[in-house]
């Protein structure tokens, strides 16, 4: 049952993460991306990336609050898909938009603070994506956790990137940034001690099959 739930959810997550890309490619091929398709595609991939990053960040707190162990694998996949969209976003910007024109890129981009923070946010995600496998997790031991805490810095930089990008009305990017900060706060030890008190919420989700969940607990990943 748990396995089925886990696999079903994973499948759902894969489809949900790849569907926006398929829609984007379709829209572009149909000329539905406004008359400025490169910009529209850049904005869309950036948005997908930050949403997936936030979803990835939300998995651990949801698990520790509600005890949904079977959602843990989503953390890795949402993170990887976020990195994928960041890669496409970066390629659209440097390759498609600027045509790898180094002098233009230099003149225009180095001076833009939003580009610089966005670049570092993406750069941080690269080693995290590369070390997302179980093998690397084993090899890096304690350092894996330390390394992967950088994802919060990536999330905050990505939010700043978004805030600095918009023209004036920064409510939407602030919402994203607020979510990152909120999810980060949930992991601060002092706050965690407090949220442990919220674990009574778990009883609202009765475990129908106690033996399957106990077997999952005896097999920590």
């Amino acid at each position, binding site marked *: 049952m748990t396995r089925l739930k886990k696999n079903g959810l994973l499948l759902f997550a894969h489809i949900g993460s790849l569907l926006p890309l398929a829609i984007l490619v379709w829209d572009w091929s149909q*000329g539905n991306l*406004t008359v*400025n398709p490169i*910009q529209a595609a850049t904005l869309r991939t950036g948005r997908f990336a930050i949403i997936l990053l936030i979803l990835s960040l939300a998995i651990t707190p949801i698990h520790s609050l509600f005890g949904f162990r079977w959602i843990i694998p989503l953390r890795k996949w949402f993170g990887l898909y976020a990195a994928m969209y960041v890669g496409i976003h970066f390629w659209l910007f440097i390759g498609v*938009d600027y045509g790898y024109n180094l002098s*233009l890129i230099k003149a225009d981009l180095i*001076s833009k603070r939003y580009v610089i923070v966005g670049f570092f946010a993406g750069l941080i995600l690269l080693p995290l994506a590369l070390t997302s496998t179980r093998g690397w997790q084993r090899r890096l031991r304690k350092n894996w956790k330390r390394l992967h805490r950088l994802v919060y810095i990536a999330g905050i930089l990505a939010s700043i990137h978004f805030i600095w*990008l918009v023209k*004036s*009305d920064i409510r939407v990017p602030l919402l994203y940034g607020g979510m990152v900060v909120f999810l980060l706060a949930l992991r601060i030890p002092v706050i965690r001690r407090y949220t442990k008190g919220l674990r009574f919420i778990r009883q609202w989700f009765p475990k129908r099959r106690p033996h399957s969940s106990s077997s999952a607990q005896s097999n920590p990943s």
Partner: protein
Amino acid sequence: MKKIKSSEITPEEVYLSRREFMKAAGIVTAGSLWLAACRGNETPASPTLSSPVVDTSADPSVYADEFGDAANTYEEITNYNNFYEFTTSKTGVAELSKDFITSPWAVQVGGLVQNPKTYDIDDLLKFEQEERIYRLRCVEAWSMVIPWQGFPLRSLLEDVEPMGNAKYVRFETLFDPDQMPGQKSNWYKWPYVEGLRMDEAMNDLTLLATGIYGKSLLPQNGAPVRLVVPWKYGFKSIKSIVKMDLVEEQPTSLWMAAAPNEYGFYANVNPEVNHPRWSQASERRIGENSRRETLMFNGYADEVAEMYSTLDLRVNY
């Protein structure tokens, strides 16, 4: 001051005959319009004011700027608009503004003038209309080439006779949140205000536009009358004007009030002066895939550079 290039001004009889040509072209291609409608386009068909045929066929190759770059299509020009009075979505303006009432309309011209006047649209159309093909460079680093109809702002200013102490013209857009839902947002200080220095307002290039491609302006393009100042970033070219005042003090525009460190009063297109978000050194012409270098004063340096010879454009951005 250098005279405006003759290639930029189309004599009225020429552009009128061109209009006839376009109309004929519209009829010829009307039969293929249903094909265009099948293209699964998210942009709504635009209502047209002057002719029952929606002339999306307007052949841009007939129209080009003085560098020989073809004008953007009517469809591009009418479906990719910044008009925050309606929505911040560039593709959403056309649909949201389609019922915008532009008739009757009154433009009140006053302030430091001998002869304050209120013009309705027929009054404005009495000024000799010309066609001008101008580049429009948005501060967001995209650009278009647009064939406008209109008349020099100077003609109207001469009509109201500015007083000697008038130093600036202050423009205001209609404030009507019921019709313009974007104005319900408190994020900006409505109504939209823009301003020009007197010499800028009197410059040959400065146009009050009433049409595009021979048709009356659509609401998304600033109907029924808007400013066009081609050597400045697009946001200076204020839309749907209801008020013009000649004043002594430099007006504070909506964008200056919203972000004074980003938007100055002058807002001249200038590849040398950086903006924190958008590249000002290059731009994408709508319809093209690669970038173009942005030209000083958007390519109109010959006509306007002299006005700023004593001004530090880095400070006065």
